[in-house]
């Protein structure tokens, strides 16, 4: 497979959030600002990238029946590493993302990729796939975070550009759903146009 | 408080223009085309051939099997064609076309005007006579009447109900019949009571026909077991289930027949036909037909021979108005729109309603606003809005669970819907789908 295609598919065509509708909890939960979205996206990317590598390395050694538990252990290890490292060096961001960091482990994207892609492909391809999907995920989260931040607080990456408050609802839970709903519609339209 | 049925119903404007017009005999047309199937059930095979000479009242097709009815020639003349003619839907059905000559009746038929009250026939004989005369329900469903008179084993009839409701707007044929043939009607009722072995009969008449109520009540004074019950005006009170509910408070179970609640319902026209068949040996070859409409010059009630083309009736009522948009055989709520004026009158034709263009165009359909009106007016307790959607989406099994087969096709739902939704159109389609499903299941 063309590696560039393999890498880039995660952004629009097979975007985990906009197209596959996976990993929605963190998508909605942490995107009240663009920064949070980006942070979460990158953390997920790291886990996705690493676990794809490891899974594709050990895939032939794993008996079929314990496939899933093994993958989970691998993923959970990387998540814990992220968790501990973030706690140590980025305590503020860690506090903001809260519960959703340990929950990376159950992000369907990661297990899905491990199961559907890494366990069937070679190291390089899997690594690139992991990176692409991860960055695509990060892109989606940042985009959603940006939209919500702009509408909700009138700022972007913490830089305020209007006086006063924005439309509060968008940084509250209902706004997350609404913003994502309409973003998916727009993304669909874009996808339709490009293909 | 006048009696009526409990649930649902609508009040369309009554428009009984022809209520005061006495029944006139319609002059014979040049040809009649008598369809061989004028009832539910299989069409019988013709007994005549091309160029045969037939007399008025002569049997031209014998009903084979139990649920079938015989067909008699309504005129004297020569059989010119044994071909298919269009029915009300434009589909071609087998028919006998006769060129009308001098009106000569079969000799055994008693054509004298006198009333014959006495009879000594047994119930069985009465039913046999009814069958021979080819009588079918004249209330619209054209179900062979002898079948309804033969109470199935294990069931018992307690009550005969005579349906003089005529709840359809515009139509007045039953109304006129009750006024003009009241005595004959009562004899007919007696005959049916005897056939059914019941002691009691109720004649249900809506309150908008006070003259008929008064007239028949007067006649009933001397009649044991027969009484007239005035009813509040509400469509579709004429539906037998609603009528039974109104008169007896009994509910025919879902999927059941009136006999399940020990009643049998017959139309007044049917009762009159029974009188003529039994007492005068006259088969069912003519009936009262109302010709009416907002622009009709001379709204009338005609006594019409079966097989007469609709165009002939319209001519007699003053001709087709210029603004005609739609011609309906039957009433406006349940009647069938015709696409040709050559369609013949059959045993079930109760009226011809001519609607001007302005009244015949359906209004544009809007989305359902879920106003519940269709539910409130459905006399069967159904949810028409839901049934329509299910029918559109071909969710046949769900439709069956929602009792679509209970729908009596009264049209109240379509009538009331503020969004002009073609509810009944789709429900009919749904019923057909469910029927198919049930049949395929039986296989």
């Amino acid at each position: 497979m063309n590696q560039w295609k393999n890498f880039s598919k995660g952004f629009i065509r097979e975007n985990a959030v906009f197209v596959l509708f996976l990993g929605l909890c963190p998508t909605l939960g942490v995107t009240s600002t663009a920064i949070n979205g980006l942070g979460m996206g990158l953390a997920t990317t790291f886990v996705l990238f690493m676990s794809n590598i490891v899974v594709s390395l050990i895939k032939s050694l794993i008996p079929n029946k314990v496939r899933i538990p093994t993958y989970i252990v691998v993923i959970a290890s990387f998540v814990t590493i992220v968790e501990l490292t973030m706690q140590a060096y980025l305590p503020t961001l860690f506090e903001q993302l809260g519960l959703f960091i340990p929950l990376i482990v159950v992000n369907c994207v990661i297990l899905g990729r491990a199961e559907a892609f890494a366990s069937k492909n070679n190291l390089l391809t899997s690594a690139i796939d992991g990176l692409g999907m991860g960055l695509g995920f990060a892109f989606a989260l940042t985009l959603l975070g940006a939209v919500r931040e702009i509408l909700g607080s009138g700022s972007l990456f913490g830089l305020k550009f209007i006086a006063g408050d924005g439309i509060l609802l968008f940084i509250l839970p209902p706004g997350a759903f609404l913003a994502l709903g309409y973003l998916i519609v727009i993304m669909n339209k874009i996808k339709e146009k490009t293909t | 408080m006048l009696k009526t049925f409990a649930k649902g119903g609508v009040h369309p404007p009554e428009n009984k223009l022809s209520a005061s017009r006495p029944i006139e005999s319609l002059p014979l047309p040049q040809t009649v085309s008598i369809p061989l199937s004028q009832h539910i059930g299989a069409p019988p095979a013709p007994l005549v051939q091309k160029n045969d000479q037939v007399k008025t009242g002569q049997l031209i097709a014998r009903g084979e099997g139990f649920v079938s009815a015989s067909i008699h020639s309504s005129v004297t003349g020569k059989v010119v064609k044994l071909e298919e003619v269009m029915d009300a839907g434009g589909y071609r059905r087998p028919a006998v076309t006769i060129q009308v000559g001098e009106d000569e009746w079969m000799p055994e038929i008693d054509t004298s005007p006198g009333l014959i009250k006495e009879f000594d026939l047994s119930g069985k004989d009465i039913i046999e006579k009814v069958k021979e005369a080819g009588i079918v329900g004249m209330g619209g469903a054209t179900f062979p009447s002898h079948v309804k008179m033969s109470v199935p084993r294990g069931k018992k009839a307690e009550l005969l109900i005579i349906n003089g409701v005529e709840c359809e707007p515009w139509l007045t044929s039953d109304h006129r019949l009750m006024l003009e043939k009241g005595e004959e009607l009562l004899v007919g009722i007696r005959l049916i009571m005897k056939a059914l072995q019941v002691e009691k009969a109720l004649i249900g008449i809506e309150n908008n026909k006070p003259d008929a109520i008064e007239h028949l009540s007067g006649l009933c004074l001397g009649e044991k077991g027969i009484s007239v019950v005035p009813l509040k005006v509400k469509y579709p009170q004429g539906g037998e289930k609603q009528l039974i509910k109104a008169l007896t408070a009994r509910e025919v179970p879902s999927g059941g027949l009136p006999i399940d609640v020990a009643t049998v319902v017959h139309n007044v026209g049917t009762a009159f036909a029974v009188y003529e068949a039994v007492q005068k040996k006259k088969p069912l070859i003519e009936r009262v037909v109302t010709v009416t409409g907002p622009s009709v010059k001379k709204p009338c009630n005609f006594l019409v021979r079966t097989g007469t083309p609709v165009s002939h009736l319209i001519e007699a009522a003053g001709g087709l108005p210029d603004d005609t948009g739609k011609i309906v055989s039957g009433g406006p709520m349940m009647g069938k729109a015709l696409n040709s004026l050559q369609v013949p009158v059959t045993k079930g034709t109760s009226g011809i309603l001519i609607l001007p263009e302005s009244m015949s165009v359906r209004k544009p359909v809007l989305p359902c606003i879920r106003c519940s009106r269709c539910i409130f007016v459905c006399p069967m307790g159904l949810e028409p809005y839901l049934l329509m959607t299910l029918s559109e989406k071909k969710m046949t099994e769900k439709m069956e669970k929602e009792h679509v087969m209970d729908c009596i096709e009264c049209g109240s739902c379509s009538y009331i819907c503020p969004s002009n939704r073609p509810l009944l159109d789709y429900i009919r389609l749904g019923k057909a789908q469910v029927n198919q499903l049930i049949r395929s299941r039986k296989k």
Partner: protein
Amino acid sequence: MDKLLRVSYSPHIHGENSVPRLMWGVIASLVPAFVLSVLYFGLGAILVTATSVLSCVLFEYLIQRFIMKVPPTVNDGSAVVTGVLLAFCLPATIPLWLVALGALVAIGVGKMSFGGLGSNPFNPALVGRVFLFISFPVQLTSWPLPMGFKTKLVDAATGATPLGVIKEGLLNNQQVPPLMDDIPSHMQLFYGNMNGSMGEVAAMALLLGFIYMVVKKIIPPVIPLTILGTVFVFTGILWLANPESNADPLFHLLTGGVMLGAIYMATDYVTSPMTKKGMVVFGVGIGVITVLIRRFGSYPEGVQFAILIMNAFVPLINSWFKPKRFGEEVQHG
């Protein structure tokens, strides 16, 4: 014959009701409430209502025309109803751009996203109103005092609504009876002489509209009666149990949005149940949730949320509460 006959299934006649007729009936019934709110709040009432109606109609037209690409149906009047009702639950001095934003959300999100008239599961006007309420709590809780045409459009004198006074007081561990002294009498509440949103203040005018709609058979009275009844009974029980911390039931009926909500918003055909049984369940649900929020929640008023929450239950109610089928019981009995 030269002209072709029309053919269709029966019935061949149709009743007089039509969607526009019903909608304009609702609008007509809202006139008394509108007149009173103009009397109480002056120019602002007119401006807010006009903005709301115009933007609802405009957005509906634009969305249908340019986004959904279907023939616009604005003349069915439903957007006008939404506009009027949205305006009626806003303060009369609210900035007009907020009204337009609310209309955009009501029509765009609440109605058109679902396909327009008849498809939306939630009441559009309430969607717009709650959106504004949550997004702009400051503006949405600044209730002008009823001073007629003396009410200023900006920086008008404001005050808490009667329900707000009670809620504040209870949060401050005050008791209800003394608080009632700050609140107009029940009779005044009935005429609508109090702070509040434009349309909700005058119980009298709303009841008049209710009677009109019931007489004209625009709505069956089931839903409003059950809601008002439930609120009355539930608050009555609380009041009898503890009059120190609960206002009396009549007070609850006459204040806040209960009347407006029960008569106009819970009765929206599209978002309410289809059967009488279902309507009762729906009404009781709204009543109970309203009182729960008023009494125990953070917001002084709960009808808007209660109606939206019960809107979500409507599909389930519809599938669980069927009309009584003719001949059904006999079959099983």
